[in-house]
């Protein structure tokens, strides 16, 4: 019987010829990523060794990535102290893939990993962050785990007791209409299959729309696969994957590129016609509360946010800049833009995008999670409404359970910034 892409990755990571859905396996890990919550993984890691007569040494310090992004620069003494402890741990253990709060190499973990060539096709990647699913865009089996599970990975170099997940095939064909794109596609899919529609399953993306999509777009759809409950989202690697890894990520070593078998068994096939989609909006307070934009046009917005690991890449910032160039952010709203990494920030600066954005009246924040969490930046006031290119609109997400968050694409966010209400970007004549 043929194998799906994830079955092949897991079989490889277990040194087996094949694995079947439901098999309990222990795949070895190629990369294990944490951010500030590595502080908890560190405590649990030390706890593992407290009662046994072994030295507390990470299995392979070159396979650990620690990226400070959730609260940078630190918003409180507590965070700064956690970061300080982790910094010391990184030094003691010799962890090489460490990205501190720095303008030359910092940023959001899910963009730092691909950008730096830390993720390759056919690998197993785990992260103490639910959006670790992002890295499926490069053909890795990448999924989120908790901090204690990470401590076990640090100790053993494998994920213990994993069940091989079933796969849902998502087949996307057709060309997007103007100002419709990957974000609208994934929002539509989540609405279609629901927030639990892919729980414990992998979404494997196929079709001509996916094949002609840039890695940036693939990162968007894999990033948000977790919002349908998926363990992982995966785009089987192709020429675009290789192009990205060589040209953008600077990877020079050999790559292991393979595809799912033609006779792979899928639990379900979901088909989407991309050409029939209009802009999609996730309405408060669940990501699967999806509406076509025309149903919510005119909704008043207090804060517009463009950025995050979902939509803070150069093409997203470019879209925002193109809409805003020579225009003004409406006085009835405010706009925050946060590029995902400092590399993107620098490129956007060079290309003049940040200048256009600032001139229009938007605030450019430093790369990091900032307003997405609303912990130390960009929190909402009581009863305020936000429109954001981020990935979650749960109650309390932007720091205030008494506020509302709508999710959208960068084009919708930027067009709406000019009017102060939810606006269909095509009408802006970009």
């Amino acid at each position, binding site marked *: 019987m043929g194998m799906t892409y994830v079955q092949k990755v897991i079989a490889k990571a277990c040194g087996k010829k094949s694995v079947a859905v439901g098999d309990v396996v222990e795949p070895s890990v190629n990369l294990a990523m944490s951010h500030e919550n590595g502080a908890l993984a560190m405590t649990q890691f030390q706890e593992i060794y407290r009662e046994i007569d072994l030295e507390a040494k990470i299995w392979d310090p070159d396979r650990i990535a620690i990226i400070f992004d959730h609260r940078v620069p630190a918003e409180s003494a507590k965070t700064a102290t956690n970061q300080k402890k982790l910094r010391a741990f990184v030094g003691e253990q010799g962890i090489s893939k460490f990205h501190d709060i720095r303008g030359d190499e910092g940023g959001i973990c899910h963009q730092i990993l691909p950008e730096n060539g830390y993720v390759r096709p056919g690998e197993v990647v785990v992260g103490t962050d639910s959006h670790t699913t992002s890295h499926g865009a490069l053909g890795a089996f990448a999924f989120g785990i908790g901090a*204690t*599970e990470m401590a076990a990975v640090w100790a*053993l170099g494998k994920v213990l007791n994993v069940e091989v997940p079933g796969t849902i095939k998502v087949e996307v064909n057709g060309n997007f209409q103007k100002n419709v794109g990957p974000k609208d596609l994934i929002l539509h899919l989540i609405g279609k299959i629901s927030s*639990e529609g892919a729980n414990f399953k992998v979404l494997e993306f196929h079709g001509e729309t996916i094949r002609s999509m840039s890695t940036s777009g693939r990162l968007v759809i894999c990033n948000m696969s977790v919002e349908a409950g998926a363990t992982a989202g995966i785009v089987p690697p192709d020429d675009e994957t290789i192009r990205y890894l060589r040209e953008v990520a600077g990877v020079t070593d050999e790559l292991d590129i393979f595809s799912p078998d033609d006779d792979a068994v899928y639990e379900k096939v979901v088909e989407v016609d991309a050409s029939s989609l209009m802009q999609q909006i996730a309405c408060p307070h669940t990501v699967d509360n999806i509406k076509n934009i025309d149903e919510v046009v005119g909704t008043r917005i207090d804060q517009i946010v463009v950025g995050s690991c979902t939509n803070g890449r150069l093409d997203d910032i470019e879209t925002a800049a193109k809409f805003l160039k020579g225009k003004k952010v409406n006085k009835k709203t405010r706009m925050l833009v946060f590029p995902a990494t400092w590399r993107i920030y620098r490129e956007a600066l060079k290309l003049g995008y940040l200048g256009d954005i600032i001139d229009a009246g938007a605030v450019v924040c430093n790369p990091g999670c900032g307003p997405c969490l609303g912990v130390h930046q960009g929190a909402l006031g009581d009863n305020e409404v936000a429109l954001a290119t981020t990935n979650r609109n749960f109650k309390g997400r932007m720091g205030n359970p008494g506020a509302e968050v709508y999710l959208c694409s960068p084009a919708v966010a930027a067009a709406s910034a000019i009017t102060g209400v939810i606006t269909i970007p095509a009408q802006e004549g970009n």
Partner: protein
Amino acid sequence: MGKVVYKIGDDVSTDIIYPGRFMATVLPTETPQFAFADDKEFNAKLNNKEIPAGSFIAADKNFGCGSSREQAASCLKGWEVTIVAKHIARIFLQNSINLGLNVLICPDIDADMGDELEVSGDVLKNKTSGKEFKIAPLPAARQAIIDAGGLIAYTRTRLMADKS
């Protein structure tokens, strides 16, 4: 045996269970105070020790969706409550098992505030309504971890086995 002390609906995210603004607090000994912090009434009941160990929190589908933050499991573990839900999101379920938080997946659960619940084998009895519900088995892969008393203990035995 215990009473349903809190009843919540679908898609209760980890942002609700443990709001992001408390994420700098990581130690399992310190997280319980912030459980359901945005529901002032329930949070106060927990902190005033009005919720006895063994009480049930009854939820509908997709409990614990969203962020992988483990504080969402450790804060509830600290109060020794049991979660019963129609269906639980993957990462939260794994975190719960790893930390030893009691979770029951009960697809047909029907229980109101104050109902008395009792687990017996793979059946959950609602003593107040007299109805019984089947408890779905946890993923087979996780049973070894539960049997070992949590992931830390399990990892220790694995390390020692690798050594010898």
